């Protein structure tokens, strides 16, 4: 039997016991975020890079005072970027901020309503970042050809959306995710769309290497309980994938012997 310890998630040369990656947006406060992170079992946390708020700075703790970059892998994102140039600039700021840490989550958005990726700009930014030595985990559409191209550019993980960011609609096109997985040479992580535990399990049962989520936990009525549910859902989905599910049949297959009854058979 495979155990979690024998089945780590490998990203950019580091191994992780948890296949869940969570965000740090939309929480009530840093403490709720920290507690959700702990309960979720996640070892990687995404953060955004924004201007400091001049004037009301000193004294207030910052996110990274509450959630330690020594204990967790901090994954800075390029959320809010709509072109390759802004995304590359954001990654450079992040690398400086995190003392040379090279791992980034690239997302170049196309439009505010859907937050779908601008694939052309994403490819351009990915090329520039890989050339500059970044380890790029990239948010993209569920297009298998684009996913392949991002792998060929040298991204360390390709992260197709399951549904729009923050929508909670689940994995809308599992067949595309399957096609991406069939050709994958890097970890494929579903990023965006997960709404509840079963969505995370479905992603893992398809064979994804992990799931990245934010809103599903942060906007649950009880974020800590949902974080616990997601921890189990991702682990359960992974185990089910490794176990290999039974074939689907249209008709029944009796689980008890149909012979040896003490009454006449049908």
């Amino acid at each position, binding site marked *: 039997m495979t155990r979690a310890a024998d089945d780590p998630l490998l990203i950019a040369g580091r191994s992780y016991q948890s296949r869940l990656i969570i*965000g*740090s*947006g*939309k*929480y009530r406060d*840093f403490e709720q*975020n920290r507690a959700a992170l702990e309960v979720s079992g996640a070892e990687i946390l*995404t*953060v*955004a*890079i*924004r*201007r*400091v708020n*001049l004037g009301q*700075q*000193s004294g207030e703790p*910052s*996110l*990274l*005072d509450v959630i330690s970059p020594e204990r967790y892998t*901090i994954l*800075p*994102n390029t*959320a809010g970027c709509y072109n390759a140039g802004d995304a590359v*600039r954001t990654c*450079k*700021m*992040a690398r*400086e*901020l*995190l003392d040379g840490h090279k791992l980034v989550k690239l997302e170049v958005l196309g439009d505010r309503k859907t937050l779908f990726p601008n694939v052309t700009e994403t490819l351009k930014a990915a090329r520039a970042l890989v050339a500059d030595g970044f380890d790029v985990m990239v948010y993209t559409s569920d297009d298998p050809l684009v996913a392949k191209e991002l792998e060929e550019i040298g991204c360390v993980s390709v992260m197709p959306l399951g549904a729009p*960011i*923050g929508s909670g609609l689940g994995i809308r096109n599992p067949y595309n995710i399957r096609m991406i997985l069939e050709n994958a040479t890097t970890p494929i992580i579903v990023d965006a769309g997960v709404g509840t535990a079963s969505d995370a399990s479905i992603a893992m049962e398809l064979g994804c290497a992990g799931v*990245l*989520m*934010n*809103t599903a936990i942060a906007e649950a009525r009880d974020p800590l309980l949902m974080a616990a549910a997601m921890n189990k859902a991702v682990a359960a989905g992974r185990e089910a994938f490794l176990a290999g599910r039974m074939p689907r049949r249209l008709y029944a297959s009796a689980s008890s012997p149909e012979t040896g009854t003490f009454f006449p058979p049908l």
Partner: protein
Amino acid sequence: MELTVNGKTRQLAPPLSVAQLVAELGMADRRIALELNGEILPRSEFGQTLLAGGDTLEIVQAIGGG
């Protein structure tokens, strides 16, 4: 001299290093990254880098995001 910090102009008296400006803004101990005129300025160079009128700075931090 006039500096633009995070999109807002400020009047400050020269000579002023980046380290002095960062201290004046109350961010000396904070985990930040800084761009001077569009280029990353490593923290190790804050002390020796003097600001000039018209300089534009961006100072960022990590905040919650997905």
